[in-house]
C-alpha cells in the first residue's frame, strides 16, 4: 500500500506535494535564508504564493483566508525573525479557533542549538501559541507530519499548527510516500453529543418561558448556520450572536437580537439577564460577553454545547453539558424537539413565550444602537451605517481592533456567516488590512471592506504594497479620529480624562499615500461627502483608500464597565456637568 510514487524529489517538493494534496491553492509568506530551497521548488509549482511585506501579516492573511472560507489558511516564514514575527498571528488564530498551518524554516539540523545565524527555538516559542506544533527531523517523516498538521488544524476545535522544517530536510532527496492514515491516539475529538442530554435539552427548551439562544463562533466553525436557523425557527427562539458569530443567524431574521456583551445592544444584554433558559452553542462565556460572571444570566438554566470539553464548565457550570460538534448536536436537538412536541404538544408556555418575544422586541425598539448623524462632521456611526447600506448584508468586512470594530459590529449587518472577519479573542491591532488580503484572495467574487482605525491602519501600512502589487480591489476605510479611540474612551471614563499617549498626529495624506502605491485614495470630513465617496470607492475596480475623518471624541455605547453586570450598561455620554472635566 505504501508505495513510492513518481520521481525523486527533494523535501521542498515533497512539502508542496503534501500541500497540493491538502487542497492548498494559495498561501502567504516571506522567504529567507533557510527557506530558499522551498521557494526554489515553489518556482515550478501551481500553488500561488502571496508575498506579504511582514511575516506577521502572512499569519493574519492566512487567518483572513480561513475565516472567509472555513478552509485551512497557510502561511510561511523563514527561521529566527521570520518565525518570531508569525507569533501574534498564531495566537490570534488560537484564540478564535481558526484553522491555520504555519510552515517555518529552521537552520540546518547540525546547527540547531548553536546560536546559528537566524536561529530561534521556534518549536519552543510557538508551543503555547499553537494547538500543536512539530519539528521535522528527517525527510521520511515530513509527509506524515504535514498531513497530521492539516488534520489537527481543521478538525475538532480548529486552531493553528506550526511545522518547523530544517534546511537540510528541504534539501534531502527521496520519494513521496503517500500517507495511508493519520493516527493520533491521544487526539480526542468528541462529535456526537450525549443522546440523553440532547433529549433533556429539548425538553428544557419546550418547558422554558424565556429561552434564549447564545450562539458563538463555534456555529461558524462547524458550518452550523442552517441548523441554528432550523432550531430558532422550530422553537421560535430569540437569539444573540457573539462578536465571533455575526452572520451565523442572518441579521435580517426576525428573532435575531444583536451582539451581547461589553458593547452589545441593550436588548441582547437584557435578554441574557432575564432569560430562564440559556442555550449556549459553540461559545465560551468570554469575559467581554458575560461581564460580572455571577450576575450573568442569573435566572437561567444553561444548556452548553461545545466541541471542547475544557470549555464546558470553565466559566459557568451548565445544567445540561453537551460535548460535541454543534452541527451534529443541533441536528439531533431539532429531531428531539420534533419528537418531544409530537409526544407532548408544542411549548407548554405559549402566552409566556409570546410575552417574552414581545418584551425583547420592545427593548429592541426602545433602545436601538445609536445611528445618529451630525450636521457638520461625520460621526463614526454614520460611516458604519453607510457601509451597512452599501453592503446590504452581503459584503465581507474585516475590522481591526478598537472603537471602529465595535461600531462596525453593532451597525453593519451580516446575513451570512464568514462575512465578518475580526480578531475577537486576541484583539490584535494591525489585523484588519492583512486579513482583508486573505479574505479577498479567498473570495475574489466578494466586495471586501477593510475597516481600520488610524492606529491599526498604521500598524499594517506596509501591506498597501501587497494590495497594490496583487491589484486586490479592497476598499480600505480608515475611521480616522486622530487618536487611539478605545484607549481614549477608557482614559476619559475611568482615568479622569487624563489623556496619555493617544494622539496620533502626522497621519499621512491618504490621496498621496495611495497614489504612491499607484491606486486611488481620498480624505473626507463632511457628512455630505460620505455616501458619494464610499460609492466611488466601491465603483473603483482596483483598491481604494478612503480616509474618513470622524468626530474625534465620540465614544462607543452601550458600554458595560469592565467587571460590571451586563444589565448595568452606560447608555450614553455623561451629562454635560461631568463631561470635559
Amino acid at each position, binding site marked *: 500500500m505504501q508505495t513510492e510514487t513518481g520521481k525523486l524529489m527533494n523535501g521542498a517538493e515533497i512539502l508542496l506535494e503534501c500541500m497540493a*494534496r491538502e487542497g492548498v491553492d494559495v498561501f502567504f509568506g516571506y522567504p529567507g535564508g533557510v527557506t530558499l530551497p522551498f521557494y526554489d521548488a515553489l518556482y515550478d509549482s501551481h500553488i500561488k504564493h502571496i508575498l506579504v511585506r511582514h511575516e506577521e501579516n502572512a499569519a493574519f492573511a492566512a487567518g483572513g483566508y480561513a475565516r472567509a472560507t472555513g478552509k485551512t489558511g497557510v502561511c510561511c516564514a523563514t527561521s529566527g525573525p521570520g518565525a518570531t514575527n508569525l507569533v501574534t498571528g498564531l495566537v490570534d488564530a488560537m484564540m478564535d479557533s481558526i484553522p491555520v498551518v504555519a510552515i517555518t524554516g529552521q537552520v540546518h539540523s547540525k546547527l540547531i542549538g548553536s546560536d546559528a545565524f537566524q536561529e530561534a527555538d521556534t518549536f519552543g516559542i510557538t508551543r*503555547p501559541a499553537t494547538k500543536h506544533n512539530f519539528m521535522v527531523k528527517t525527510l521520511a517523516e515530513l509527509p506524515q507530519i504535514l498531513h497530521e498538521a492539516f488534520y489537527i488544524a481543521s478538525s475538532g476545535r480548529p486552531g493553528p499548527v506550526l511545522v518547523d522544517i530544517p534546511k537540510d530536510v528541504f534539501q534531502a532527496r527521496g520519494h513521496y510516500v503517500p500517507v495511508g492514515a493519520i493516527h493520533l491516539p491521544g487526539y480526542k475529538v468528541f462529535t456526537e453529543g450525549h443522546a440523553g442530554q440532547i433529549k433533556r435539552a429539548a425538553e428544557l427548551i419546550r418547558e422554558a418561558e424565556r429561552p434564549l439562544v447564545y450562539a458563538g463562533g463555534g456555529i461558524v466553525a462547524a458550518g452550523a448556520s442552517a441548523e441554528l436557523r432550523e432550531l430558532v425557527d422550530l422553537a421560535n427562539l430569540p437569539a444573540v450572536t457573539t462578536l465571533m458569530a455575526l452572520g451565523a443567524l442572518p441579521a435580517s431574521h426576525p428573532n435575531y437580537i444583536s451582539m451581547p456583551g461589553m458593547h452589545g445592544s441593550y436588548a441582547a444584554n437584557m435578554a441574557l439577564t432575564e432569560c430562564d433558559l440559556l442555550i449556549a452553542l459553540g461559545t465560551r462565556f468570554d469575559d467581554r460577553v458575560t461581564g460580572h460572571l455571577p450576575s450573568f444570566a442569573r435566572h437561567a438554566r444553561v444548556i452548553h454545547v461545545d466541541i471542547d470539553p475544557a470549555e464546558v464548565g470553565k466559566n459557568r457550570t451548565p445544567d445540561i453539558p453537551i460535548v460535541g460538534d454543534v452541527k451534529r448536536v443541533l441536528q439531533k436537538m431539532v429531531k428531539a424537539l420534533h419528537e418531544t412536541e409530537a409526544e407532548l404538544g408544542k411549548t407548554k408556555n405559549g402566552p409566556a413565550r409570546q410575552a417574552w418575544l414581545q418584551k425583547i422586541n420592545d427593548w429592541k425598539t426602545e433602545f436601538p444602537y445609536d445611528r445618529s448623524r451630525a450636521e457638520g462632521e461625520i460621526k463614526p456611526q454614520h460611516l458604519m451605517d453607510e457601509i451597512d447600506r452599501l453592503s446590504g448584508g452581503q459584503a465581507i468586512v474585516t475590522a481591526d481592533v478598537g472603537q471602529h470594530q465595535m461600531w462596525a459590529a453593532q451597525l453593519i449587518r451580516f446575513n451570512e456567516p464568514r462575512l465578518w472577519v475580526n480578531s475577537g479573542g486576541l484583539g490584535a491591532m494591525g489585523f484588519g488590512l492583512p486579513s482583508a488580503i486573505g479574505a479577498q484572495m479567498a473570495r475574489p467574487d466578494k466586495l471586501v471592506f477593510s475597516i481600520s482605525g488610524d492606529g491599526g491602519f498604521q500598524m499594517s501600512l506596509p501591506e498597501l504594497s501587497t494590495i497594490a502589487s496583487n491589484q486586490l480591489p479592497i476598499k480600505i476605510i480608515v475611521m480616522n479620529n486622530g487618536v487611539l479611540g478605545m484607549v481614549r474612551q477608557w482614559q476619559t471614563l475611568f482615568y479622569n480624562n487624563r489623556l496619555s499617549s493617544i494622539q496620533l498626529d502626522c497621519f499621512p495624506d491618504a490621496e498621496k499615500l495611495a497614489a504612491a502605491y499607484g491606486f486611488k485614495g481620498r480624505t473626507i470630513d463632511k457628512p455630505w461627502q460620505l455616501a458619494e465617496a464610499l460609492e466611488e470607492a466601491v465603483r473603483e475596480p482596483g483598491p481604494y483608500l478612503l480616509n474618513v475623518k470622524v468626530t474625534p471624541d465620540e465614544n462607543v455605547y452601550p458600554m458595560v464597565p469592565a467587571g460590571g453586570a451586563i444589565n448595568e450598561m452606560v447608555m450614553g455620554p455623561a451629562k454635560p456637568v461631568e463631561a470635559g472635566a
Partner: protein
Amino acid sequence: MLQTISILVENKPGALLRVTGVLSARGYNIESLTVAKTLDPQLSRMTIVVDVEDRIRTQVIKQINKLINVLQATDMTEIPSVIRELVLVRVRCGQEARTAVLKEAEIFHSRVVDSSTDGFAIEATGDPEKLDEFIEVMRTYGEIDVARSGAIAMSLETKKLRLQPPVAAPVAVQAT
C-alpha cells in the same frame, strides 16, 4: 491541597514541556514530577504533584487531556490509588549512633545501601508523608543528604482508555 496527576503521554520531543506548560502558564509551581517509559516504549507515564486551587483543578486536567500527545490525564487525588516515593538518605553519624540508626531504618522498612565509617546510605520507599517522617528522624542522628524521586502513582480502579481511531489521509491531488 496537593494534587497528584497521572498522565499517559506519547514519548515525543516536547511532550513534557506541553504538559508542564499547562501548569506554568497558570502560574503553578510543580512540587514533584517523575516520568519514565511504560510497557509500550512509545508511551511514558508521568506523575505530577502540584498545588492547584480547587476551583480550577478540573480545568487543569481537561487542558492536559486536550494536548495532542496526551492519551489520558487522571486526577489521582480523587480516586482510590497508591502513591509511593523513593528517598536516598546519607546520614553521617558517630560510632555510638550506628545501632540506633540501623534500628530506625528497620522500623521504616528501609534498606541500607552503603555503609562506611562515616555512616550509612539508606534507601526508603513509602508514601511521601511517611518519607518526610523518616527524613526527620534521620536528621536527629547527624548531618544528612537527601535525594527524593518524586511521587509515582497507580490507580486502583480500571479506567477505560479512550483512544482516537486512525483517520484516512488525503489521497489524491485535488484539482485546483
